[in-house]
């Protein structure tokens, strides 16, 4: 083993230097920290309105204008293509009846319950597929395949199994949403940087603690994306089921309203129902899922240009 000829001459530090060093070091560090820390600039509200609110408003106005134009030019007879105002009247009528919120609530509560059940089933299922090799090989491909099967295809089968009952509707919703939620979690887990898993293991987070403290929080962004898609699938499946499985026992949701309007040849009510289905679907995504997703991504610094 070779040793160095460390030159211990006068230029080497005196103890006084060594004592002065910590204060200097602290100062240097504070300076570096200050220089390298990004300053967040607040975006004024007017800017947010201009960037976020104005564009969709413009788009909606344009669509309404084109629609009104088509109505005025009578591209289709009025009973086939009512004006936006007619549709508004239909909505107003249902609102004044006091039945409008009933339809919406009927569907939304079913959708929410179905979604909650899908969550409870899809989450452990996704975790199993993501972490157990045998399970992944066995049902992973089926699960992704199920996602591309339109869940309306399940309606006839469900009616034969369960008759015209709520079970039919929930069965269809579950078959639509569970694969999405499970697949979202699987891809969320797959996208976890191996570094986090390694770091977790060195900290001693293995087994259940590893799943709870590392795996699930790390997979959260993918999981939330899956939930969002799961909700969209729930809502779609629900409407398909409601539209086909109509019976007095099932009450009246938006799907049944739509079917009733078709039977009555009431085109403005058909369009009004479609509008409501659209608004509810988008509204729940915007009011519930989008804020959660934004919050998660922002807290992790994954929305660099977020405004």
């Amino acid at each position, binding site marked *: *083993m*070779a*040793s*160095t*000829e*460390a*030159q*211990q001459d006068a*230029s*080497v*530090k005196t103890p006084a230097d*060594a004592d002065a*060093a*910590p204060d200097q*070091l*602290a100062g*240097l*560090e*504070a300076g*570096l*920290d200050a*220089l*390298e*820390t*990004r300053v967040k600039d607040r975006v004024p509200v007017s800017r947010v309105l201009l960037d976020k609110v104005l564009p969709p408003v413009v788009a909606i106005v344009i669509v309404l204008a084109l629609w009104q134009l088509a109505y005025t030019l009578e591209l289709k007879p009025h009973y086939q293509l009512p004006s936006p105002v007619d549709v508004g009247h239909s909505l107003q009528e249902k609102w004044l009846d006091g039945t409008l919120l009933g339809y919406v609530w009927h569907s939304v509560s079913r959708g929410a319950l179905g979604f909650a059940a899908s969550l409870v089933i899809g989450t452990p299922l996704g975790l199993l597929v993501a972490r157990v090799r045998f399970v992944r090989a066995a049902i992973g491909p089926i699960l992704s395949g199920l996602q591309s099967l339109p869940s309306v295809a399940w309606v006839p089968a469900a009616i034969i199994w369960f008759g015209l009952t709520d079970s039919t509707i929930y069965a269809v919703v579950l078959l639509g949403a569970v694969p999405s939620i499970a697949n979202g979690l699987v891809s969320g887990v797959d996208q976890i940087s191996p*570094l*986090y898993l*390694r*770091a977790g*293991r*060195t*900290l*001693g*987070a293995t087994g259940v*603690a590893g799943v709870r*403290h*590392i795996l699930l*929080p*790390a997979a*959260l962004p993918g999981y939330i994306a899956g939930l969002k898609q799961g909700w969209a699938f729930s809502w779609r499946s629900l409407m398909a089921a409601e539209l086909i499985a109509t019976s007095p026992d099932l009450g009246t949701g938006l799907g049944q309203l739509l079917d009733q309007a078709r039977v009555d040849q009431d085109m403005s009510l058909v369009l009004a129902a479609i509008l409501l289905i659209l608004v509810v679907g988008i509204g729940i995504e915007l009011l519930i899922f989008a804020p959660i997703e934004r919050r*998660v991504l922002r*807290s*992790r*610094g*994954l929305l660099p240009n977020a405004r």
Partner: protein
Amino acid sequence: MTATLTQKPVEKNGTGTHAARFDHVSKSFGRPGAQQLVLDDITLDVAPGEFVCLLGASGCGKSTLLNLVAGLDKPTGGSIDVPGGRPALMFQEHALFPWLTAGKNIELALRMRGVPRAERRDEAERLLELVRLKGAYGKRVHELSGGMRQRVAMARALAQDSRLLLMDEPFAALDAITRDVLHDELTRIWRETNLSVLFVTHNVREAVRLAQRVVLMSSRPGRIAREWDVEMPQPRRIEDAAVADLSVEITEQLRGEIRRHGQH
């Protein structure tokens, strides 16, 4: 001229004679028949409280060696003894969890160690203060600069209260000024905590700046080529003449090792 090293007291760091002992350790990867030998016959002791730098070019198996000590992988032959329990490990990337604040990252390490909930917050604050990041408790990882992240990672590693700290090129991705500052920090913390440190790097100056002992590894397969005791007193500066002199000598040797690979 060389006897000026102040030996660190050993008893404070436990009663053992070593913080880590490698006994004829070898490691191969691949299937039987087509195996590639990555580490060959590594025998090395890290004394309690000692700061050892493992130095080598690419392919010398430095990181593989750290994985073995950290228990993330098993040696093919020989044995590794780490009496202090699971060693703490710091990576080149900070590896902080972005879903937790700086403070909560540290608290997770404390929790995994079994520290009661009531004590975690105070202990995390104390560790942040040790790395001079008082007030960073509630900061998210992305709000911190590269140097600050590595200091939080250091605090998290210290939170494991292990007697052995493994560092896998932890400052390689930092700019020179920040790296220099973190060298000073690491030296200070090492002296305050009396930890044993096994520090892997390919940067000769960094090794000489930090270590009490520099271990040069050859590549493919990784073997211990030579060792140097670095006896300049701490704190050193990376631009010290003595650091430079030893660096030149070690670099020569390192180049020799690398040149051998070009010859066949």
